């Protein structure tokens, strides 16, 4: 589904990704862990097409198509979704309006008929239940005045509405208390299926107790320096990142 080969990217003069390789097959959940500044969020930004980043080497194929050449909306239309670490507040645009625009834009690009108001409301109701979302939240402006937990829940809700093939969760656990974390993780787990893949970027092993990954990768200095199964996350939790850094240097 996703094939990243020797990916290199910079922001301004600063080189951040230095030859990153990753293969994600349908239905798999890959966790990416690593110390601060290792390039985790840059990876998410590059995959979703943030303009500030300059991809200066390697390639990213999504279903055999060069992802890097596509505009952010085209990537979304093809089924790539990013749950933001810091979801943006958009005053004046209601959550419902925003999602209706988004869902129909994606459907249109995929050659499907647009949803009418009634169909949309039905689907929205169903997906809201998935993340235990209050119905008043759909009438409020996108993320405006939402608590940290509400914002993250809203990200998962959007993911549920857009039904992506590949979802990238960028530190979705940051700023969440344990109850909110469980709700968000439950939402993600309900969305797991054999055709949908996830890249879960996180600092902490905690999230992976809830969203159990198939693979865990350690990102350091812009490269994946270690990969393993879910037990690797536990090892990192116990020992920290220093032993990996030492191994890398050695």
């Amino acid at each position, binding site marked *: 589904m996703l094939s990243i080969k020797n990916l290199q990217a910079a922001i301004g003069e600063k080189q951040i990704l230095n030859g990153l390789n990753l293969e994600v097959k349908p239905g798999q959940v890959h966790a990416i862990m690593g110390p601060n500044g290792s390039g985790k969020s840059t990876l998410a930004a590059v995959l*979703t*097409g*943030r*303009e500030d980043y300059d991809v200066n080497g390697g390639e990213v194929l999504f279903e055999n198509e060069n992802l890097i050449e596509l*505009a*952010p*909306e085209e*990537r*979304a*239309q093809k089924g790539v*979704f*990013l749950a*933001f670490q810091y*979801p*943006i507040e*958009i*005053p*004046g*645009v209601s959550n419902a*309006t*925003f*999602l209706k*625009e*988004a*869902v129909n*834009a*994606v459907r249109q*690009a995929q050659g499907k008929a647009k949803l009418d108001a009634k169909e949309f409301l039905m689907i929205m109701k169903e997906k809201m239940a998935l993340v235990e979302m209050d119905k008043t939240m759909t009438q409020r*402006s*996108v993320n405006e005045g939402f608590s940290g937990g509400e914002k993250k829940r809203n990200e998962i809700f*959007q993911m549920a509405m*857009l039904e992506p093939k590949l979802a990238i969760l960028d530190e979705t656990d940051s700023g969440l208390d344990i109850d909110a974390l469980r709700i968000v993780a439950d939402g993600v787990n309900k969305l797991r299926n054999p055709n949908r893949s996830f890249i879960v970027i996180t600092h902490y092993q905690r999230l992976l107790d809830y969203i159990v990954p198939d693979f865990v990768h350690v990102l350091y200095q812009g490269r994946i320096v270690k990969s393993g199964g879910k037990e690797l996350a536990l090892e990192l939790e116990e020992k920290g990142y220093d032993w990996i850094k030492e191994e890398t240097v050695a």
Partner: protein
Amino acid sequence: MQHTLENTIAESAFSEFENKQASLAQVNNKLRKQAFDAFTANGFPTTKNEEWKYCDVSTLMQTPLATSAQSQNKTTIDLPLLNDAIVLVFENGLFNESLSQYTSLPKGLTIELLQNTKHEAATKHYQQYADNQMAFSALNTAFNTGGLFIHAADQAIINDNIFIINRVSNLQNNATYCRNLIIAGTNAQMQVSLLTISSNATGYLNVVNELVALQNANLSFDFIQNDVDTLSQISNTYVYQKTQSTFTINTVTLGGKLVRNNLNMMLADANIETHLNGLFVINGKSLVDNHTAVHHAQPNCNSNQLYKGIVSQNATGVFNGKIFVYKDAQKTNAYQSNKNVLLSDDAKMFAKPQLEIYADDVKCSHGATTGQLDNEALFYLRSRGINLPDAQALLNFAFASDVLQNIKHEALHKYTVALLAQKL
């Protein structure tokens, strides 16, 4: 006026106008003459005048002062929001009886033509607030072809929606005039909307509104300007408020070649509340210049001002907001906010807030920002599959909609929102 030749031309235009419209002119002959004399003394403003720095009216000076409009456009005005409303239609400055609907008015509401009315309040208030030192205002007083007098009697609560439709059509290089005197009596409530529309027209529309809210009255005025980009408009709106009154004006500009709005608010008593909201969404080579002046003459008054602009292509926006707090106006709260978005490299915006405060116990604030659409928000929308132009439209719409929320009349709000959506 400096040039004698221009003076001669203007004077012959005025005397010709006086002869032609004898009946109309008689009513306020003296006022017309005074206004015309003031105009000839001052002439048209030039861009050397600080107040007109960005607003070059030299092309309007080529337009004859008196209208030559006679024939009337018979096309019905097909706007669903006019159903069940009181509608007064003016075509090229002349009242169009057949397209208007104003029979069976509610108790306490008087609607008459200014040139016909014998109402005491009309005589008392007409041309009491309009300033002859303002060239276009003086020209309106001198040359207007009649207008409307709308009066809510003391205690009258008018729930009907009152629309003034001013249409300029099939008229080249003409000045047309729109003149309104609207008075809400003591304890009265009223809401009036003025829509300016046009087709196949060049020249300019000259609007003067005198709006009066007497003691404890609640008056609101929605002013929607949606003209073709070949027609200009100069408006002078004068608001006079007595104690405990509440006034709201929403000025929405969605079209026009050169649009200049002067809004002058006199808070003549204590305990007054006033709201000024404005939105302009312009493209092409349009220029929209909003000048506001809020005069806090007495203590304990609140004024709230919110103006927003979206300027694209080669268009130019101007906002100049003045707040005067007089020596006696202690405990004044005066707020002003102006926010603008430029959507292209060639779009221009000039914003100038001005506060003159002569009292020492007041709360005043102003803020003016001009920027571009929030890139983070754009990326967020695009990352959800929304195409760039739609994402921009959505953000612009959100930016503008909090001004439109102040239009309390639901059908008009809906109509304006639809116009905005079209424009974006």
